[in-house]
């Protein structure tokens, strides 16, 4: 009896060891691509990331040096324009789903938002191309910002709804019982309590669209020079990387690597910021 139990114990130890080894290898496989991407970007791009990269315009083929300042600024402009469209509509939509609306309407809206989140991003580019670019006869920063903003809306709507629903009902009741109106309760109590979660959702949406290339192909189009009017084509970091990467020139390839490194680092920083924001979750609930 005793020896049999000992055998069992040995067998269980082996099984446990096997399971943890498999899990460990899987975990490594998950992390490995991120490490590889960073490694390659650093090896190929780091040498081209210098002061010029952040301050100079692209140079013509064959001329050494130059940078991507127009693309960096262009990306920021596009993100700002996308935020103007995406953040208010997304946040208010999420608040509506979390606070108002009947169960049936909400489940339909939620389903639509989920479908929209799954739509390939190039589709948004085509939609905006049809709606804006053709109508106004030209690629523009407006069109690019609109495409990115439309992608942000369902993302922010869903994250906002989730954090609004996490706010315990006791806080709503406490405010309403003080004779505070419904919308003031929502603005000053519910949204304030959920603000950290809402901001996190916004940042994640920005990080997501900041790296989008496809929706900009037919909208912002790209520009090798400064953009002087929002109704003109505008450069964006992912677009510039795309253009340079498919070119046949070595120095453009190096610039593309550098651009990718800057872009990934930027998105990485936003994600780190999100982690920091969500770390102190114990104090307020979301």
């Amino acid at each position, binding site marked *: 009896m005793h020896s049999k139990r000992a055998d069992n114990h040995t067998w269980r130890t082996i099984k446990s060891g096997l399971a943890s080894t498999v899990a460990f290898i899987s975990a490594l496989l998950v992390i490995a691509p991120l490490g590889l991407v960073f490694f390659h970007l650093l090896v190929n791009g780091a040498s081209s990331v210098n002061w010029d990269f952040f301050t100079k315009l692209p140079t013509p083929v064959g001329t050494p040096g130059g940078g991507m300042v127009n693309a960096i600024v262009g990306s920021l402009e596009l993100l700002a324009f996308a935020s103007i469209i995406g953040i208010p509509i997304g946040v208010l939509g999420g608040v509506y789903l979390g606070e108002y609306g009947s169960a049936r309407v909400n489940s339909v809206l939620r389903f639509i938002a989920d479908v929209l989140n799954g739509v390939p991003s190039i589709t948004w580019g085509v939609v905006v191309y049809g709606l804006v670019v053709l109508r106004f006869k030209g690629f523009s920063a407006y069109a690019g910002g609109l495409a990115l903003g439309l992608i942000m809306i369902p993302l922010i709507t869903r994250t906002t709804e989730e954090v609004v629903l996490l706010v315990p009902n*006791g806080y709503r009741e*406490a*405010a309403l*019982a*003080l*004779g505070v109106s419904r919308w003031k309760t929502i603005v000053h109590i519910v949204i304030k*309590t959920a603000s950290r979660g809402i901001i996190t959702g916004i940042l994640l949406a920005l990080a997501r669209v900041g790296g989008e290339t496809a929706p900009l192909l037919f909208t912002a189009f790209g520009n090798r020079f400064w953009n002087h009017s929002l109704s003109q084509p505008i450069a964006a970091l992912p677009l510039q990387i795309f253009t340079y990467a498919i070119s046949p020139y070595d120095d453009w390839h190096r610039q593309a690597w550098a651009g990718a490194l800057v872009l990934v680092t930027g998105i990485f920083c936003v994600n780190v910021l999100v982690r920091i924001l969500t770390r102190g979750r114990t104090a*307020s609930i979301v």
Partner: protein
Amino acid sequence: MATPDPTVVERVERAAEPAPTPEPAPASTFQVKNLSVWYGDKRAIDDVTLDVASDAVTAIIGPSGCGKSTFLRCLNRMHELVPKTRVEGTVFLQGEDLYSSDVDPAIVRRRVGMVFQKSNPFPTMSIGENVVIGLRLNGVRSQKFLNERLEKSLRMAALWDEVKDDLHKAGTSLSGGQQQRLCIARALAVEPEVLLMDEPCSALDPIATAKIEELIYELKAHYTIVTVTHNMQQAGRISDYTAFFYLGRLIEFGPTTKIFTNPNERQTEDYITGRFG
């Protein structure tokens, strides 16, 4: 949002003047007549008629699911937050029909404050902000007035001495009993006429409970208090009148001493002596 609510301003002005000679208080604050409440098809309250005495503590007792909380929430229309609720009958507050179509539920709730079972200070606000948030969101801007009301409310809630140096600290940093008194202070700050309490001590330890009970005893000099409690000893200690609910019906209502020593109804006696519930 910037325009102050007229009723608050009116009360602010009233508070600033010296109090006029009090009129003889009416005998009852609430007059509830034939009140029935449905949640969907389920009848939660069945034809309840009772008068709530002014400046006294009325306790509502009964087993779980008997409609105690629903009844309490009908007194400030908080039950309307539950979808598919239907109410029949009337509730008069100082002679005014609370369910009349031209009555704004927000105004009702300003006159009838509420303290909940689970203390719920707002987690994003300091102790001081928690107390005055009701006034602020109802349009009061004067910092001087807010500060005065802050101290007065905390004193009435017997919390001032414990927190006066920590007003900027988070409301959630207080102990459970202190948080519940903070919630009472928050409810008092808007100067309601009535205070409803939904099992205010059920999540507290005996010492914190004793403090709240003492506070209720002091507050009844100025406020009509209606409290729901699971704890019959507590009802016996703090209340002047007791209403016993069972299965949505009011079985018996009367002075607490009478209900606890010589109830008319067999069911009341069975519940109080612990034979069921």
